[in-house]
């Protein structure tokens, strides 16, 4: 009997121990994009702070859906694009304001930090700080399609069945700019905006014969370009840089009307439980050496000051080729999307998808 008692006591003790351990170890639940939190960085963060990072890979729409479903619970830190904070925050209230005093401002490139602050402010409160930035434009195999310089060139008859796009807002807005419109200036005027996106939607529908298949994840696109099935596509610059490392003929090409620039931010979900860990993570990954590790894995550029010195030379060369200073100056930065616009765009895109 004494043995049995001993065993029970031992079991109870071990159960209590195992139950106590996870409660003591802190975790940061991070909702982010693929490659934004490389394993090596997570390990360094754990070594430095003792905090475990649980990563959930997502994208802009999925982040909003996930946080909307729980009213902003389940994650401690999210990384939506700066233009996708204002609308969802007004509609669903899924974020909480940031305490900027907890962020080391000196680590950031001031222009990017200010731009993100301005674009994510509601009633004087800031909801996002800048992390990585990049653009959306064209990825072109310049040997097979040397003359593609604009969205309209994707629709040239000689590239029938040889191009791809992602049927989302960057394609629609890119087409609008290529047609000489300025959709960003019409964000405040719904009637005018509807006219512009209707026109761009019609152009996309007319271009449909040229599209081999619309891509949805960057892996789809990588496969189609690597195999040579697609020679030019509407895509993110990071996809172009990734392919450039494998085949120097392929690279990102900023469209003549200007590449569309986005900044991904750090934002605090409304019911996040570990804000301290979130601020620690932000300050940790914005250190130049760490930021460069993330840049190398994501292929997008960091708002961390001085990080470009530590980026791999191959990526830097691809970037410099695609983005000479005059192209950077021409980037059209996505302004915050007012609530309601995305529903209008959605309908136009549905029509393009369903039409023949």
């Amino acid at each position, binding site marked *: 009997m004494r043995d049995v008692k001993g065993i029970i006591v031992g079991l109870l003790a071990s159960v209590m121990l195992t139950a106590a351990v996870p409660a003591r170890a802190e975790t940061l639940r991070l909702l982010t994009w693929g490659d934004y939190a490389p394993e090596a960085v997570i390990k360094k963060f754990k070594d430095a702070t003792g905090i475990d990072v649980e990563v959930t890979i997502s994208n802009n729409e999925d982040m909003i859906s996930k946080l909307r479903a729980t009213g902003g619970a389940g994650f401690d830190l999210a990384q939506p694009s700066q233009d996708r904070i204002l609308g969802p925050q007004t*509609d669903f209230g899924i974020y909480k304001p940031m305490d900027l005093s907890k962020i080391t401002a000196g680590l950031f490139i001031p222009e990017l930090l200010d731009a993100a602050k301005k674009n994510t402010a509601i009633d004087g409160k800031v909801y996002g700080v800048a992390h990585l930035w990049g653009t959306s434009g064209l990825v072109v195999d310049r040997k097979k399609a040397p003359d593609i310089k604009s969205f309209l060139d994707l629709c040239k008859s000689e590239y029938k069945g040889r191009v791809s796009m992602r049927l989302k807002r960057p394609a629609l807005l890119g087409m609008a700019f290529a047609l000489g419109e300025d959709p960003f200036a019409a964000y405040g005027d719904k009637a005018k905006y509807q006219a512009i996106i209707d026109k761009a939607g019609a152009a996309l529908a007319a271009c449909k014969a040229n599209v*081999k*298949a619309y891509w949805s994840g960057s892996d789809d696109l990588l496969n189609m370009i690597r195999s040579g*099935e697609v020679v030019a596509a509407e895509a993110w610059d990071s996809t172009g840089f990734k392919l450039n490392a494998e085949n120097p003929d392929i690279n990102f090409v900023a469209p003549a009307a200007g590449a569309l620039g986005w900044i991904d931010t750090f934002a605090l979900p409304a019911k996040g439980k570990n804000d301290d860990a979130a601020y620690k993570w932000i300050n940790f990954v914005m250190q130049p050496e760490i930021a460069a590790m993330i840049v190398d894995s994501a292929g997008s550029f960091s708002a961390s000051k001085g990080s470009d010195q530590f980026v791999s030379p191959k990526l830097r060369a691809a970037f410099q080729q695609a983005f000479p200073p005059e192209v950077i100056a021409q980037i059209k930065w996505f302004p915050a999307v007012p609530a309601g616009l995305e529903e209008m765009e*959605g309908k136009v895109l549905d029509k393009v998808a369903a039409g023949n």
Partner: protein
Amino acid sequence: MNAPLNPAASGASAPREEGAAARRLSFILVFAPFALWIALVILVPQLNLFFLSLREKVGPQVYVLGPRNYTELFGESVYVLTLVRTVVMSLLATFATLIIGFPIAYYIAKIARGRARTLLFMSCLLPFWVSELVRVFGWMLILRETGLLSRLLQGLGLVDGPVELLYNDVAVMVGLIYTSMLFMVVPLVSTLDSLDDALVEAGYDLGGNGLVVLWEIVIPHAKPGIVAGAIIVFMLNLGNYLTPTLLGGKNSQWFTAQIYSQFITRFNWESGSAFGFVLLVTSSLIVWLALRASGQTLSGTIGKG
């Protein structure tokens, strides 16, 4: 005062009541998981969905009750056409599955014997040991422009350049038939199995040829299996998301993809719920019509199958 007067009766009835109570308790215990399942996993979410679908958004975080989500769906020809297209293609795929599945089932049930029978049945089952995603990727590797079939055709000299066989409606059909074949074959085998061979022989003895025997004897007997298989396959096709999305081309919109995009990329849960409800009602209606037309009942087909 009454109780001691009739000790025998009270003594006899008490255990009987106890037995009934125990039976009732065991019934409740056995029934509870089922009832909980139906209520929590099916009824509550559906009701929630229905309620959501009747919410109209009038401003940020402000909603009123109303049918606008439905009127918008039916007012936009794009969505109605997608629904019709999805239904028609699902019906076609179901019919094709039946045409291909029937001979297979007949062979397994009536002609193959012993080990060959097990082997054939297993080969129908085997593809289902891997996930649907892997199976669909397999088809993508075969059908794509730089894929197996295109290379084979070029190697045989049948075509000059690479041919694209992926991203069209035929590829979607192939994928749907492949995905749902088993669900047609299993109910067919089980009904054909119960067909007495003597009836088929009698049919021939009475002067019927193969076609007449098939039409007059085999098919009427297999009808519950056919209807059961067709209903399952039709529902699977209609609700399939993966196959049409991956194999389908730029014009192959499937209704489930519309629901997904309403919920996930537009965060428009209200209209997504309306879409979901319309799909539910449409599929129920078609199944009901098919049962009426074939003179079967749901319990007589699915129950048997």
